[in-house]
C-alpha cells in the first residue's frame, strides 16, 4: 500500500534582508497510515517550517519552495491551487499549534469556532454542527460539554483551550493530524493530560499523527517513529526504541546525553554539545552538525551525507553521517 504521505526532496528558503535563509534542505521521508511520527529538533532545524510549507502555510514572499514534492493520499500538495489547499486544510489534514491563546478567536464562542470547518467542509446545518461540537468536546475530555460549547475562550484554562484546539484539529476526521509544539506552552501536569488524550484518540479513531516538538521525553512516549532534524536536514530517523537505545548520529547522541536523566547535583557534569546552532544564511555545505561534532571527519565539512540505512540495526533506522558513531564511541571508551 502506498504511504499516506511522501515527502521528496523538499527544499524551502526564505529571502530576507540579511540573505537567503536555507530553512529546509532536501528533506525526504514517508509516513504510513496510522503511524505516529515524532519530529524533534530545535529552533532553526526546519521541523515546523517543513510541515507548514507542505500545506501552503508559509508566507510567500519571503518564503519560497525551491523544489520537491509532497504526495499526500495520491496528490502532490505543492501543485495544488490555493483554493484546493484551503479545502484540504482542516478537512484532510488537521492542525494543532503551540499557542492556544492566540489561535482561538476571543470574540467567538467555542461552538462557533469548532463548527466553522464542519459547516464549511461538510455543509452541516447549525443543528447538526452543534451536535457534532458537543460530541467532539466530550471526546477530548471537556466536562459539561453542551454548556461549555457556548462559552468564550477566556472562560477556559490553558489546558482546556488546547483540548479545544485538538477538537478543532480532529473535527473533520482528518487523515493526518499535525501538532506543532502543541504542549510546549502548557504546564507539565497539563501536558501529561494532553498526551494521554492524544494516545487515547489514536486508539479510538486511529489518526495518523506528526508530532513536532523539541522534547525528547514527549517523543519517547508518543511516537512510533522518530525523526531528528538539524539545520534543515534529517540527521537520523527510525523506530523510537532503536533511535533512543542505539543512536547513530552524533547529534542525537549528544542531545540524549546532555539531558539530566535524573542525575543529581555534584555527581558529574552534564555533557554539553559544544558550539552554537548553525547560521542558516550560509549556503548549506556538508553535514550541518559537523562544526559541533567531535567525531566529524574532513568529508563531513565538504560533502553532505545522504540518509541511508544504519548498519546492523532494525529496518527503517536511517542516518545521515560519514563517521561511524559506534566505532568512535568504542574508541573513546577504550574498547576494541
Amino acid at each position, binding site marked *: 500500500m502506498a504511504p499516506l504521505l511522501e515527502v521528496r526532496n523538499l527544499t524551502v528558503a526564505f529571502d530576507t534582508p540579511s540573505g537567503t535563509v536555507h530553512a529546509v534542505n532536501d528533506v525526504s521521508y514517508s509516513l504510513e497510515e496510522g503511524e505516529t511520527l515524532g519530529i524533534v529538533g*530545535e*529552533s532553526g532545524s526546519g521541523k515546523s517550517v517543513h510541515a507548514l510549507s507542505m500545506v501552503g502555510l508559509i508566507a510567500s514572499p519571503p518564503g519560497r519552495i525551491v523544489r520537491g514534492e509532497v504526495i499526500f493520499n495520491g496528490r502532490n500538495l505543492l501543485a495544488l491551487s490555493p483554493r484546493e489547499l484551503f479545502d484540504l486544510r482542516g478537512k484532510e489534514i488537521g492542525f494543532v499549534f503551540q499557542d492556544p491563546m492566540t489561535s482561538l478567536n476571543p470574540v467567538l464562542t467555542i461552538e462557533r469556532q469548532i463548527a466553522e470547518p464542519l459547516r464549511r467542509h461538510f455543509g452541516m446545518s447549525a443543528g447538526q454542527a452543534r451536535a457534532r461540537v458537543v460530541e467532539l468536546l466530550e471526546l477530548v475530555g471537556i466536562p459539561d460539554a453542551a454548556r461549555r460549547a457556548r462559552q468564550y475562550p477566556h472562560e477556559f484554562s*490553558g489546558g482546556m483551550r488546547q483540548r479545544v484546539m485538538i477538537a478543532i484539529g480532529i473535527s473533520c476526521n482528518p487523515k493526518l493530524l499535525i501538532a506543532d509544539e502543541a504542549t510546549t506552552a502548557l*504546564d*507539565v*501536569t*497539563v*501536558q*501529561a*493530560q494532553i*498526551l*494521554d488524550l492524544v494516545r487515547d484518540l489514536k486508539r479510538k479513531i486511529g489518526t495518523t499523527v506528526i508530532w513536532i516538538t*523539541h*522534547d*525528547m*521525553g*514527549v517523543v*519517547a*512516549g508518543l511516537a512510533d517513529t522518530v525523526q531528528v532534524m538539524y539545520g534543515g536536514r534529517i540527521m537520523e530517523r527510525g523506530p*523510537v*526504541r532503536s533511535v*533512543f*537505545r542505539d543512536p547513530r548520529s552524533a*547529534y542525537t547522541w*549528544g*542531545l*540524549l546525553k*546532555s*539531558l*539530566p*536523566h*535524573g*542525575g*543529581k*547535583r555534584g555527581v558529574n*557534569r*552534564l*555533557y*554539553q*554539545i*559544544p558550539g*552554537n*546552532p548553525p547560521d542558516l544564511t550560509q549556503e548549506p555545505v556538508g553535514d550541518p552538525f559537523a562544526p*559541533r561534532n567531535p567525531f566529524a571527519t574532513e568529508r563531513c565539512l565538504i560533502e553532505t551525507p545522504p540518509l541511508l540505512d544504519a548498519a546492523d540495526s532494525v529496518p527503517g533506522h536511517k542516518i545521515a553521517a560519514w563517521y561511524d558513531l559506534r566505532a568512535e564511541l568504542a574508541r573513546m571508551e577504550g574498547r576494541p
Partner: protein
Amino acid sequence: MTDAPMDAPMNAPLVSVSRLSKHYGGERRLIGGTVPLLKAVNNVSFDIAPGETLGLVGESGSGKSTTGRVLLQLEAPTDGDILYKGENITGLSKPALKSYRRDMQIIFQDPYASLNPRMTVGEFVAEPLDVHGLAGSRSERQDRVASLFSKVGLDPSFMKRYPHEFSGGQRQRVSIARAIALNPAFIVADEPITALDVSIQAQIVNLFQDLQDELGLTYLFIAHDLSMIRYLCHRVAVMLRGRIVEIGPCEAIFENPQHPYTRALLSAIPVPDPDIERNRRPIAFDVNANLPPEEAVLRPVGHGHFVLGV
C-alpha cells in the same frame, strides 16, 4: 505559623525571607465594587545559605517569579520581611538600596527581550560598572569586560558586536556576564534556560555551576523543569498558587515527596526513554479542588524537609 524552615545551617543564611506576601488588586473601583484580590505570593518563608542553590518550582501562576522579583525589591511586598546578611532591607529607600543592588542580581528568561538591541554587548556588560562608579579608566573598564566575557565562555573580541549577531545561548552568556559584573553574592535566575535550545541548555547549566564553584555565588533558581532542578540545586521549594507547599533537600523532594502536588508534578515529567515513558502513569491533581487552606502551615516531615498541612 512555624518559622522559616532551616536546613541545619552551618552558617547564618545569606538571604532570609519571612512571611512574604504580594497581593494584586483588592482596591476599590471608582464605580462600585473592588478589583478581585490575587494573592500572587502568600505568606512565604525560606532561607538560603551562602553558596547554596535553592530551586523554586511551580507552574505558571504559582508566584515563583513574583517571589524572585519581590525578593530583589523590584516590586514592593504587601507584607513580610526580606533579610540580607541579617539586615532587614524591606522598604528601604532607593539610595539606601543601591549598595544592596550591587550584591543581588537577576537573570531573566528571555535573552532576546532582556538585551538592549541598540547597545553593543560590551557596553551592556559594562553598564552596571558605570552605574556604580566602578569602571575606572577606559582601559581598566575594557579589561574588566574582557575578563567577564572570558569567564562566561565568550570570546572578548565579541565586545563590539550587537545582540542580533548572537544566538540565544550566547545572549544568555552576555546576560550572565552583566549579572556577575559587580561581583554579586546572590543571583536570582528566573527560568534562565527555558527559552534556550536543548543543545545549549546543558552549556548554560554547567556555566551556572562553574561560576558558583569559582565565585561562591548563591542562587535562587526559578524553573519549571524539575529534571534540571535536581541537577543544579541543593534544596527545592515547590510553590502552588502563591504558597510553598513543600521545601527540603533535593534528595528528599525527589525520592520522598510528601505533598500530593509535588507527587503530581514529579510524575508528569516526560522521561526520554521509550520503555519508561510508555509505562509512566502521571498522577492527576486538581489544583482548584485542592487549594491549600489559609490556615495551613509548613510542618517538618524529615531533616530540613517541610510540607504544608493543617
